[in-house]
């Protein structure tokens, strides 16, 4: 069986699971946010349940349109806040405790390997980096899981991604996942698991794995999964979770497909508008004039991401006419970046530093694009209109490429400015 099916079998009280089988699985964590919680709460109340199955297994993060964008989002947050208080939800994150949910939850020690995590947010798949089965669902699923502690799932087939070799200079997890999506397409893994294995993972940090797992949904996958190795065990220990190593092995009965990737083949990537699968090497990207650069998000808003951006920006300024927006992904990342002196580098470069929020990634606030504007962004989606006006354009890249592009005002290889 695939490693995903082993986790699901344990949560459905079965010894074996065949792909395609419908199961009812117990959930270890149920996540939602200020956009998806309101419908979930409405449906939860319609179900008529008095209590949440376990208030300590429910997490709500007000991260999308916060600090409150407008009156309508303020009303939504107020409704969610009052529900959280009424139900005694311990893991409720508001104001100064808010991080972008998928940056925040691993840091808070809420994600355990082998657990089942569902979230009313498509990027819930991020937690597969830590060996959890984690998948995005809708608000009604969140409501049902809050009431019953269970979720219906169709057992997925799995694709094995074998990673070998070492990264080239300035390439990182973002480039691996953009390259993979470019190879298999935006529906290349629909309904299936993407399970990562191979020697190449030794050179991929836990933060890099979180970036990779974050974007498996951009290939249509149900979940992504990484082995729990010494790097994972050390990371988990640092957030207070004891874990032992587990591997993902090729298994002739487990996988419906295999993709081989040599990291040495991957130049830093840029996904051109308006699909994440439009990935090209940065050197092949068109010469477009940029209006905005965004460094942050649940994909690339971690401390390693800000460090690499600072390495490129040190002593330099964003080009005239380029709005550089930097969004640390959590209070811990924010404080760390401040204490390490990264904020000085960013401010000297002419950047604005935002509080942790999803904000511009989904065209919410804190950096919405006008008609005809172009941005390079370390976020995860470049759909038409994703960051603002339908006629604006988003190019996706890693933080080093985004930072170098801010300096030149056009899509640039980091080596050119450092």
């Amino acid at each position, binding site marked *: 069986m695939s490693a995903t099916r082993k986790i699901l079998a344990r949560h459905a009280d079965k010894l074996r699971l065949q792909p395609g089988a*419908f199961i*009812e699985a117990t959930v270890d964590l149920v996540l939602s946010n200020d*956009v*998806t919680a*309101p*419908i979930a709460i*409405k*449906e939860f109340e*319609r*179900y*008529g349940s008095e209590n949440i199955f376990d208030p300590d297994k429910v997490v709500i993060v007000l991260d*999308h*349109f916060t600090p409150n964008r*407008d009156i*309508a*989002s303020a*009303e*939504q947050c107020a409704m969610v806040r009052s529900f959280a208080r009424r139900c005694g939800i311990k893991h409720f994150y508001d104001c100064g405790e808010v991080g972008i949910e998928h940056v925040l939850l691993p840091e808070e020690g809420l994600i355990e390997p082998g657990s089942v995590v569902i*979230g*009313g*947010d*498509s990027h*819930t798949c991020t937690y597969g980096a830590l060996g959890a089965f984690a998948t*995005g*669902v*809708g*608000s*009604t*699923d969140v*409501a*049902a899981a809050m*009431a*019953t502690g*269970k979720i*219906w799932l169709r057992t997925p087939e799995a694709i094995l991604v074998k990673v070998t070799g070492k990264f080239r200079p300035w390439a990182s997890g973002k480039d691996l996942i953009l390259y993979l999506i470019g190879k298999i397409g*935006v*529906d290349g893994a*629909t*309904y299936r698991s993407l399970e990562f294995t191979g020697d190449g993972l030794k050179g991929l940090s836990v933060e890099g794995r979180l970036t990779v797992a974050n974007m498996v*949904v951009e290939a*249509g996958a*149900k979940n992504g999964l990484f082995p729990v190795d010494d790097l994972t065990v050390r990371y988990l220990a640092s957030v207070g979770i004891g874990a032992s190593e587990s591997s993902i092995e090729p298994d002739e009965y487990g996988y419906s497909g295999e993709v081989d990737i040599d990291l040495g083949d991957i130049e830093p990537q840029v996904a051109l508008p308006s*699909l994440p699968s439009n990935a090209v090497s940065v050197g092949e990207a068109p010469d477009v004039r940029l209006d905005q650069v965004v460094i942050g998000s649940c994909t690339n808003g971690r401390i390693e991401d800000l460090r690499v951006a600072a390495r490129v920006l040190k002593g330099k300024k964003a080009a005239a006419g380029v709005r550089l927006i930097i969004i640390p992904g959590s209070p811990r990342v924010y404080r760390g970046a401040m204490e390490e002196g990264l904020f000085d580098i960013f401010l000297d470069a002419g950047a604005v530093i935002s509080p942790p929020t999803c904000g511009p990634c*989904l*065209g*919410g606030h804190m950096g919405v694009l006008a008609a005809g504007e172009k941005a390079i962004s370390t976020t995860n*989606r470049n*759909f*038409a*209109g*994703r960051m603002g006006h*339908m006629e604006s354009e988003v190019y996706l890249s890693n933080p080093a490429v985004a930072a170098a592009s801010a300096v030149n005002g056009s899509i640039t290889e980091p080596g050119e400015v450092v």
Partner: protein
Amino acid sequence: MSASGGLIEGNAHILGDHIDTDAIIPATRLVSHDPVELGGHLLEGYDPDFASRIKEGDIIVAGENFGSGSSREHAPLAIKGAGVACVIATSFARIFFRNAVNVGLPILESPEVAEVTEEGDRLRIDLAAGKVENLTTRASFSVEPYPEFMRRIIDAGGLIDYLKKGQGSE
């Protein structure tokens, strides 16, 4: 009449491949969960006049990977709220598929129907029999019925109503 057992008849509105949830209902509209209000903005990220062309009972016919992107349940709610009775696509993104089942929006996967249907064709859909008739061209297609488990959820009117009827513990 159950949602998966009824007859649906309406005009087809054709969409392309990879229609994402940002196109179906842009994030900036996610401050409402009223289906009718959301429906007024249906597909405004794709074609600002789309919602005004929909008549009650109409059918969306789309290409590959319909509903890709975010998990927003506002997307199937907007489709329902605009009066669309069914979505037929070559294929669906998985979270959209779940959400449609969970909110009781009938959806059908049929590459054949998606390939030959044209804008404005009159379609009649028999969900229980798994049959789609194009009344304009007189062509007829059979489609894969829902798995039994999903059919029960759709028949109940969505996941919460299914659970309320106590069927979730079966």
